[in-house]
């Protein structure tokens, strides 16, 4: 795409002897929308704080335009941050919050007024200049925080779960708006979220992290279609992950049956993880199926049914528009491009089984992660 702006080189971070970031290697391109995605506690904020200059890595280098900036304090970096909980100045009104950075830079008064007004327009808060920030709604505060950072024309904007506190509807609107702002102002966005949908919808590049390590870097499509390991496959969207054996290039065996696939480059008879996305499975009459199973649970999801199907004791999630009653026997067909074969990793066997699936599953885990914050 465009040229590299920031690079993290062999960056590790330890707190009290605990390794929180383990040898991170990552570069951020100019004008790119890059998202750090991962579960709570995986080190996203820590990575962002290293880029912002609030933390100095225990080892490794932070490079900006090729220059090492490990010890450059935040106020001397061409980077601005939108904090996880906004951190607006409660003693200043909306205008003064946004003007804060410009006043520090000693920008002339008329210019400050002009730029703040422009920003208020960009974030759709025209006429809010004199409102106290504590009287604003969450979404409005959030937009003030964005304006306060953007008005300084940073090269890079760091955003730490900026939409975390907003309701679903507002979240979707703000996603669009952020994307628009990023395109119009041509700024590099480094965006942190633990919401995979948000990451896929907004980013040019997604960096999936877990346990202080980068699991995969790629475009949203790459990450979804070609997950590198069971963790990524499970974290991004829904996945059935089963043990398989790569018999030869283009032939994978699961449940003792050989299937044609598009993957290659594995050793003959190498044990692998096989990902089958719920929407890549076709339901056919039992007699015509490549695999046969029993429907054990049906959930109506509006656009489609989520059904849980038991294949030889292993439960799959399948999304279908055909209604299959609970208890019915069905057959399935999977096209070669419906298989995605991955090397075994230490995540193998930990994900991708829907035995404990319940329709509330997602909501419960969401609520939990919010309560933790």
């Amino acid at each position, binding site marked *: 795409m465009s040229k590299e702006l920031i690079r993290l080189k062999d960056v590790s971070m330890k707190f009290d002897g605990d390794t929180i970031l383990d040898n991170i290697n990552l570069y951020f391109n100019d004008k790119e929308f890059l998202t750090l995605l991962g579960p709570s506690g995986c080190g996203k904020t820590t990575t962002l704080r290293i880029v912002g200059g*609030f933390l100095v890595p225990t080892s490794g280098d932070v490079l900006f335009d090729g220059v090492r900036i490990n010890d450059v304090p935040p*106020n001397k970096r061409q980077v601005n*941050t939108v*904090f996880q909980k906004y951190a607006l100045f*409660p003693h200043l009104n909306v205008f003064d919050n946004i003007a804060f950075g410009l006043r*520090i830079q000693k920008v002339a008064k008329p210019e400050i007024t002009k730029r703040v007004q422009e920003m208020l327009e960009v974030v759709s808060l025209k006429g809010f200049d004199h409102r*106290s920030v504590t009287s604003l709604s969450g979404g409005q505060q959030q937009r003030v925080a964005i304006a306060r950072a953007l008005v300084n024309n940073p090269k890079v904007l760091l955003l730490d779960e900026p939409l975390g506190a907003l309701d679903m509807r507002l979240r979707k609107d703000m996603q669009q708006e952020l994307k628009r702002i990023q395109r119009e102002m041509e700024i590099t966005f480094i965006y942190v979220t633990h919401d995979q949908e948000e990451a896929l919808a907004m980013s040019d590049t997604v960096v999936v992290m877990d346990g202080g390590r980068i699991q995969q870097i790629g475009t949203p499509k790459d990450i979804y279609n070609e997950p590198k390991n069971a963790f990524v496959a499970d974290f991004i969207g829904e996945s059935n992950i089963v043990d398989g054996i790569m018999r030869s290039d283009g032939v994978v065996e699961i449940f003792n049956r050989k299937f044609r696939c598009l993957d290659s480059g594995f050793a003959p008879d190498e044990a692998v993880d096989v990902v089958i996305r719920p929407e890549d499975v076709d339901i056919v009459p039992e007699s015509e199926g490549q695999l046969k199973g029993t429907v054990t649970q049906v959930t109506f999801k509006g656009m489609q049914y989520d059904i849980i199907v038991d294949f030889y004791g292993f439960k799959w999630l399948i999304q279908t528009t055909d209604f299959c009653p609970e208890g019915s026997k069905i057959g399935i067909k999977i096209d070669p491009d419906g298989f995605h074969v991955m090397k075994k990793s230490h995540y193998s066997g930990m994900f991708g089984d829907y035995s404990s699936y319940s329709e509330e599953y997602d909501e419960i885990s969401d609520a939990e992660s919010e309560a933790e914050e």
Partner: protein
Amino acid sequence: MSGAKSRRTAVLLGPYSVWAALFILVPLFFVAYYAFTDNSFNFTLDNILKFFTEQSRETGSRIYLDIFFRSLKLAVISTVICLLMGYPLAYIMTRAGERAQKIMMVLIMIPMWMNFLIRTYAWMTILQDTGILNGFIQSLGLQPIHIIGTESAVVVGMVYDYLPYMVLPIYSVMAKMDYKLVEAARDLGCNGLQVLRRVILPLSIPGILNGVTMVLIPSISTFYISQKLGNGKFFLIGDAIEGQYVSNNLHFAAAMAFILMVILLAAMALIKYLTGRREYEGGAKA
């Protein structure tokens, strides 16, 4: 329901109201009563007027007004010194680790557990011409200084006594402050000094006002410290009230106390009025 609730509130407030009446209103009433009466309890303004008009026979200066202004001067000096020392101290405390914070807190509180007479005597032995301070200075090969019996000595004693009342309110406001605000300021280009001036200072104003009030009021009515550390040369308004009281001049003592109280109340009301407009919702309110 709201009727029941307000009745409940009234019942709960009952004991407090009695307490407040007994220990606050009744004494206040007697102070005012004595201030405006003569020895046979007839109404008079003489005591009040005496405070403003009584002149020294030798110099012609107004005795009590002079004492009042001297008290005010020393109190303001002490308050300013307490603020200059207490503010950084409070800031350092909030930035220290949890353990260090607790230890510092205890160190600040310990002197408050000691009787203030004892504290004052301790300072006498330190500040005397042949005291600990001069012993130390001489051991460095320097000339001894004469400090006991000067206004400086009185200020030292007052600062020592009242410093905790400055530190604690400022600390409590600062400790509640969101550290992310400091990071946000750094992020927006502030160096350390600018962070202090543009974020920490404005947000700790409620604490500063509390601290100033809590130091200024007791220090303006200080007595005894001035007698001991000032060698009795610097009569303060507190000493004057005590002196009149001890010599059984209750009505004039009450008049002085009453005037002092009115002035302090007016000052507090003014501070409240000036700062009330600056208050913001949320954030670090005292």
